[in-house]
């Protein structure tokens, strides 16, 4: 370890690879191993989901309760393949997932993949807003907390962080709604857009399902504004869930980095305050944050269920809550399996990102 490396670590993998040294091969090997690890991870996750869903009985019996005669129930079970041995169902289920076939919902016979496509964009959009809010709040406030370590601002921010991830997300949502929608009337209290804008966006010739993108593509300023206004409260609600974690992580890492030799060297040269943090300590301190952010995706998806329900945000979380209510475990299984895949893939992407930023990760 040299001072040069610490002060100015290689910004990307490209220069290292270009040197023709072992860095490029290391990166490739690392990426391949990480990619291959997705397979067992997803396999374990979807298997757990499959087995947990079976603990509650089979999806057909759960969904239809006593509404079917024994003959009708049997016919339904045969049609859906639930009368077969568990192992056979399991293998079919895995085959289906491998080909993007998540089965059909028990209650309305819709392909689960269609549900995932229809509502996935809304959840993705909400997750993006939440991540944006989390980064916007968590990183700078984490830096402030580190800068004023153990002083009043730090104590206040740490308390705030604990509150933000300890408070139930629906409570935060209801509180924000009460203050900003009901009392002050500044923001809409629910939905992804006003009715007119929703109709306008959904009737464009081509859509992504991500309202902000569709509104931007339409070039309609009123639509963009409406979509953003509707995004504020749910975005903050879900974002706060992660912002607290992020704040504490940034603070801890920064405090650690600020005590390293190369930062001390910078300090001895007269660099201080936020300049010391931003120019010399922030980058190495933020690398582990990226990894943790990947893990937070799972928390975001979990939080999305309550946030979407609180704000009538018609995404996968909202649908998951609906299908749980009607005990459509076939649909629940599909949505949760997709969540599992998203978490695994996101963690892979985060690993890739961390490896590209910090070559030490590859070895």
């Amino acid at each position, binding site marked *: 370890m040299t001072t040069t490396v610490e002060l100015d670590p290689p*910004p*990307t*993998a*490209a220069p290292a*690879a270009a040197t023709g040294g072992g860095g490029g091969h290391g990166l490739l090997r690392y990426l391949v191993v990480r990619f291959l690890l997705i397979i067992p991870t997803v396999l374990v996750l979807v298997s757990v989901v499959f087995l947990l869903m079976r603990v509650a009985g089979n999806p057909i019996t*759960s969904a*239809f*309760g*006593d*509404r*079917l005669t024994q003959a009708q129930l049997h016919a339904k079970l045969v049609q859906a393949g639930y009368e077969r041995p568990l192992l056979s169902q399991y293998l079919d289920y895995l085959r289906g997932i491998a080909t993007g076939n998540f089965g059909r919902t028990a209650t*309305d*016979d*819709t392909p689960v993949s269609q549900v995932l*496509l229809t509502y996935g*964009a809304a959840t993705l959009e909400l997750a*993006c807003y939440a991540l*944006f809010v989390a*980064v*916007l709040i968590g990183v700078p406030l984490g830096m402030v907390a580190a800068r004023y370590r153990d002083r009043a601002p730090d104590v206040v921010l740490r308390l705030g962080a604990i509150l933000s991830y300890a408070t139930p997300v629906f409570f935060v949502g209801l509180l924000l709604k009460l203050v900003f*929608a009901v009392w002050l*009337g500044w923001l809409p*209290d*629910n939905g992804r857009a*006003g*009715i*007119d804008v*929703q109709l*306008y966006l*959904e*009737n464009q*010739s*081509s*859509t*992504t399902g*991500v309202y902000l*993108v569709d509104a931007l*593509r339409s070039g*309609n300023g*009123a639509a963009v504004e409406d979509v953003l206004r509707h995004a504020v409260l749910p975005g903050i609600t879900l974002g706060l869930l992660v912002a607290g974690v992020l704040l504490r992580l940034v603070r801890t890492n920064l405090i650690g980095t600020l005590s390293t030799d190369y930062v001390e060297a910078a300090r001895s040269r007269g660099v201080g305050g936020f300049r010391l*943090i*931003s*120019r*010399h*300590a*922030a*980058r*190495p301190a*933020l*690398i582990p944050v990226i990894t943790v952010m990947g893990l937070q995706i799972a928390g975001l998806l979990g939080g999305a269920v309550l946030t979407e*329900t*609180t704000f*009538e945000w*018609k995404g996968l979380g*909202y649908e998951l809550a*609906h299908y749980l*209510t009607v*005990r459509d475990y076939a649909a629940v299984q599909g949505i949760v399996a997709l969540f599992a895949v998203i978490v695994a893939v996101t963690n892979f992407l985060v690993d*890739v990102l961390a490896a*590209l930023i910090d070559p030490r990760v590859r070895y």
Partner: protein
Amino acid sequence: MNSPSTNTFSTDAFSADAFSAGPNGHRTRGRRGLSVLSLGAATLLALTACTSERSGTGAAAPGSGSPTKTVTIGTTDQVVSLDPAGSWDAGSGAIETEVYATLLSTRDGTTDVTPDLAASIELTSPKQYTVTLKPGLTFANGDPLTSADVKFSFDRQLRIADPNGPSPLLYDLASTAAPTPDTVVFTLKAANDSLFPQVLTTQAGIIVDHKVFPADKVLDDTSIVAAKPWDGQYAVTSYAKNSLATFTANSAYKGQLGTPKTSNIQLKYYTDASNLKLDVQQGAVDVVYRTLSIPDLESLTGKNGITVHTGSGNGIRFIVFDLKTQPYGSKTPQADPAKALAVREAVADSVDREQLAQQVYKNTYQPLYSSVPQGIAGATESLKPLYGDKQGGPSTAAAARVLSAAGVKTPVTLNLEYNTDHYGSSSTDEYALIKNQLESTGLFKVNLQSTLWSQYGTERVADQFPLYQLGWYADYLDADDYLSSFFAASSWVSNGYQDPAVDKLIAQEETEADPAKRVAEIEEIQDKVALTLPIIPLLQGSTAIVTRGGIGGVPATLTSAYVFRWADLTKS
């Protein structure tokens, strides 16, 4: 993964310099300053590439304004399917009754059945109804609506017999024939079935386009909306399932209900009733139909610019006795019919319906003294003069007398089951109060338990619950729907009750051509079952519609015969 662009993006997004303040003119640092935004933008741009094509309906740009008044209705109901063969629920029915038509329908707050798509209906033989269609009927897509479509619709319902569908209502239909393009002949299994015209008004009687719907399976919503097979007062113009749907008046409709007073309707779906309440308060929604919570309705009542219309509904709530497993029931070790009846009578003497209606349901529900709710032709209050204080109130003395006379040792232990997730959140309060009412007499010890709906239905018909909660909403507004379903030998309740005399009376009223005679028979059935009490009616539900100022077309007081139709709504 080593492409320059990827590397540049990754570095910039998370570099330390991204957080530096102060002026700089360096290209890289400039990008770094926007790193967080660029992350979001990159995600959005990636999504932009993944576009899906949709069929546009030419929705106006927001803010462009529209001269046409649109009524926005909010609901917490959810749609199962737009295919009439695949749904038999309130959410699907709300749309289906507006966009599809039936041969007959009811109108103007009455239970009278009158021709809709039909020009006439006639009982041409004891087992045959002949229907003549109005001339020139078409679907919104231009397809002619003929007797072939009618035959197809009924054959299809019976063939598919989807567990979510209303085909059980067609229990008496043997076959449908279409001898001419405008004539349909229904052949029934029983002679003189006076109820069949009522069945024709239900979701089971919806006429669908045979060129659009497959004969043997339920069609998905997307395909239905695309094919425009509408023959009702409205046509769907855009449809996002359980999110937002829009409708416009269907000019092809030529039925009795006429042209809608408001051409454009928007239907917005909510999961959380409090969001719906907020939106009606703030003016995002003009009308709320199903369902706000009772406290929400209470808080909206009297609010400036908002009207809460309430009245009797046709939903009922009652306690069922499993005659096999109730105390002294036929399959218990102490089986004793006289003592079992005494227990049922004592429970009927002890429950205070007024208190339940007032305390739990804030008077949005009404006490019910027969299984047939008030407002339905033939409804009586048979239990009122028989039990409690004989005026509808409870009487501990009467309950004690009947138990003592039968030699029943007190306190009697009652295992009472209720459901927490099917009959609304107030069920818990309702049954806690019932337990309190029964135990306060000193005559009963109540073990109150609850079961989720998914197990509830299976366990109740397996005689697992000696006493249990049930509720009922009418398929069609006729007393028979509240009698045969509970007291016929093959009843849905299936609690072991069977009385050949009642069975005979039910068969009589179902085929009675003389209306006065039929009412007498219906009343006699209610009087008979009131004496044996296989169920104890408790409450009659209410209908509630909330409207904002400027919305007309909803009667100030709703009756149980009131049918909510969008076409009646006006907006000033």
